[in-house]
């Protein structure tokens, strides 16, 4: 395993004096802070449908984002031209937020640093894998899914990778880079029986190389899981409608935490006091069996990073401790304005967007209950195993997430599969209704993408089996 590769300014065509000059242009009297974010990204995808790998694509992009902050104001410009002239223009644009370009401040010389740890060591770059090998893997997936059941009529699979090199230079004198690999393998199956068509999806990934999907035959597991879900849905009955107890399985159903709690604890909304969680620090927002963290430091996870996109090391932040709201997740701007700690959650989609406080891997710690006892405790309710996406209105706290694999619970037994249904609740209230937490914490497979202000970033979630005493289930059977 190699060390982190050094990302050098020279790779972007600049020298230390160039960036020192650019930062100097920006750092005038009113400007508190400025940074340059250099990024180069290679994305590749190969996809299969109808039994043939018919599409392959590659995209290359590079550029620099230049940002200045003054009080609550942010000036931001970006360029996909990496010349000293374009950098100077971007610096002048970013400086526009300052009242005048007067009062130059001293910018310390860059202190070259590297992240203190490597959460995604690799013995070769993630791009170093022949297209033919990817094609072969997708063919194996097609065969595996069709072998699962003859009612599988179409299999769609794709392998995507991204290889990103970033470098952050700040007016505090920090100059730090990271190489961030990211891959994902996704399988979707369509099943058909007597005109009834159903879909099933499964996938996984992380900051891992291609070999990850061959280890333990993961690709085959993904194929079988997608096929199993599609076949299962052929026999699903209408979902119930109304308030009832819901048991969430471990892993990906942790999307509940992401929507119900996570977004509401991002510092920007709380600084502006537009979050349903504003002013609730130190207050009870969950039952005492709930402890929830955001942890960007777990090796190889999709939501993990050696450093955030402002050069701050990621960390493990306790959001809720035994039901009490303990902290927010922050970027530099909001941490400074609120006078609270930097948590390493300043993330951006690319050089074309500004950093915002964003989640990394958000999950609930394991409890003490036996998952079987949790199910047995429900007389009539829903057992939700897998979910599609979710969404939240941060201001009123109402959130939804949509089950894609769920079952009825009748007299403590898991019985019939039901069709997908949306669950809706209120963020500051829902976790007070969690009465049991299993000892079976599971992190998701590595497929999550979070959207905020038009910016997408990879994230992770996790959950043990939990019981929510009541939540509204949006089926059709009232």
């Amino acid at each position, binding site marked *: 395993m190699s060390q982190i590769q050094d990302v050098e300014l020279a790779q972007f065509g600049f020298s230390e004096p160039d960036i020192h000059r650019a930062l100097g242009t920006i750092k005038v009297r009113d400007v508190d802070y400025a940074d340059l974010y250099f990024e180069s990204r290679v994305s590749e995808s190969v996809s299969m449908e109808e039994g043939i790998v*018919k599409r392959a694509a590659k*995209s*290359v992009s590079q550029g620099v984002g230049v940002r200045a902050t003054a009080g*609550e104001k942010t000036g931001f410009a970006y360029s996909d031209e990496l010349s000293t002239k374009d950098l100077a223009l971007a610096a002048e*644009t970013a400086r526009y937020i300052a009242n005048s370009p007067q009062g130059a401040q001293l910018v310390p010389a860059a202190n070259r640093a590297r992240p203190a740890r490597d959460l995604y060591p690799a013995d070769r770059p993630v791009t170093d894998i022949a297209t033919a090998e990817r094609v072969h893997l997708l063919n194996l997936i097609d065969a595996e899914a069709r072998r699962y059941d003859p009612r599988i009529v179409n299999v769609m699979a794709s392998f995507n990778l991204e290889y990103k090199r970033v470098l952050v230079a700040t007016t505090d004198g920090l100059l730090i880079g990271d190489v961030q690999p990211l891959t994902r393998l996704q399988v979707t199956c369509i099943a058909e029986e007597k005109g009834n068509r159903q879909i099933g999806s499964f996938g996984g990934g992380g900051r891992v190389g291609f070999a990850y999907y061959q280890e333990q035959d993961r690709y085959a597991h993904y194929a079988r899981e997608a096929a199993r879900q599609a076949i299962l849905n052929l026999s699903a009955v209408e979902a119930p409608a109304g308030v009832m107890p819901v048991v969430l399985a471990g892993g990906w159903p942790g999307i509940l935490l992401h929507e119900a709690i996570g977004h509401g604890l991002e510092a920007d909304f709380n600084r*502006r006091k537009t979050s349903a969680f504003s002013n609730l620090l130190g207050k009870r927002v969950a039952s005492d069996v709930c402890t929830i963290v955001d942890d960007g430091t777990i090796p190889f996870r999709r939501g993990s990073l050696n450093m955030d996109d402002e050069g701050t090391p990621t960390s493990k932040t306790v959001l809720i401790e035994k039901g009490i709201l303990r902290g927010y997740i922050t970027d530099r701007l909001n941490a400074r304005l609120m006078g609270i700690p930097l948590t390493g959650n300043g993330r951006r989609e690319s050089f074309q967007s500004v950093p915002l406080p964003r989640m990394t891997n958000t999950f609930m710690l394991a409890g003490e209950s036996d998952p079987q006892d949790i199910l047995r405790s429900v007389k009539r309710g829903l057992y939700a195993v897998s979910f599609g996406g979710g*969404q939240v209105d941060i*201001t*009123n706290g109402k959130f939804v997430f949509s089950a894609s694999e769920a079952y009825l619970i009748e007299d403590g037994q898991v019985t019939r599969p039901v069709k997908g249904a949306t669950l809706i609740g209120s963020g500051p209230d829902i976790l007070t209704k969690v009465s049991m937490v299993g000892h079976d914490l599971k992190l998701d497979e590595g497929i999550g993408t979070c959207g905020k202000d038009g910016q997408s970033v990879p994230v992770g979630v996790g959950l043990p089996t939990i019981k929510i005493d009541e939540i509204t289930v949006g089926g*059709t059977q009232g």
Partner: protein
Amino acid sequence: MSGTLQTTQDLTQLAADLLARAKKQGATAADVVVADGETFSVQVRLSAVDRLTKAREKRLGLRVFIGKRSATASTSDFSGESLDRLVSDTCALASAVVEDRVSGLPDASAMAKDLPDLDLYDPTSLSTDQQIELAKRAESSALAMDPRITNSEGADFNSASGRVVLGNSHGFLGDYRSSTFSLSVSPVATDASSGGMQRDSWYAVQRKYGKLDSPESVGQEAARRTIRRLGARKVPTTKAPVVFDQEMAGSLLGHLCSAASGYALYKGASFLVGQLGQKLAPDCVTIYDDGRIPGGLGSRPFDGEGLPTRKTTVMDRGVLASYLLDSYSGRKLGLSSTGSASRGVGESPSVGPTNFYLVPGSTSPSDIIRSVKSGLYITELIGFGVNMVTGDYSRGAAGFWIENGELAYPVEEITIAGNLKRMFADIELVGSDLEFRGRIASPTIKIGEMTIAGN
């Protein structure tokens, strides 16, 4: 932002040059998309500048065919060395995938010949201070409207302009310019008794600056929409008629549009599979996709493959009259392209709407609400609970409870559920209030019955 602004002629020359390089490297056919543009956006919050963003960007995408194999690649680096690498990478990728019998460019004879000026570009250039002022006026109007408006997520003004050049090895070479101007406001209101907060927003978007609603009207509408949500509550689980406002009806139309995409259909991933020519909705439902509305937000003279855009009747008095197709998905289904190829730079074509809309009826929105004795008026939907394969539908909703034809009180934390096929069949009234605020637009509609889950 770069001083080296390229002319449209430079970009078309670049496209032609790239096609020649691809041919030299063994491509039997190819097409190229080049796009560049400038964006400027200001965000103000509580009457102070919150964020200014300015950028100029460019991108180039190449698709090559080597016989029946194909691949795509894109880059933002237009240097000669980078373009050489792009061409060789794309050809290498194409050699590594499997032959696809139906792949290929459209027929040479079908390429767009007339490229009408659809009035998509407005050269108006606003200064930074003018844009800040417009956003401030919009937000101030919202803040001044009512003392219950206590906070704000800000107001945004955005302007963008760009060019698209598309060329292929049939000799087609087309280009067009376009611009958009948009303004949005997101006020926050507080309920003095409960302390509960609500946020809503309103926006305006146009290709011509002169056609944009005034900042004051956008701000006031945003405030009105926010205040009316205060005091929202749940309702008991029931079945009832549901009225969708313009925006929410537009979201239903969006689902229909996705289901009518040739790609979803040939993959068997649409609830409209095998429904062409079937009566799926009542006579009051006629839907067009019209790519040539002057100044339209979805208008363009040619599609993502260089085929002429046109007006397609998707649903004719309730009968599914056409799918939306590009040449690939058309060939898969044994049908002709409808000129609906949409294309991200560096992606294979897919299918997308141009200006996709439901033809308005004659009933006013207030008369639609008056027709409901007890039911729901929906103004917001959240979440992704839509299964395109089955049409099963279940989403989080907020809006108003209707009692005896009047909006009685705001509701939230409820879901509405049904099946899209049955919902379209169950459209009882189509409003007279069609307005285009995007590529998909609908008047208010009333659906006979859906399941509402609450407490």
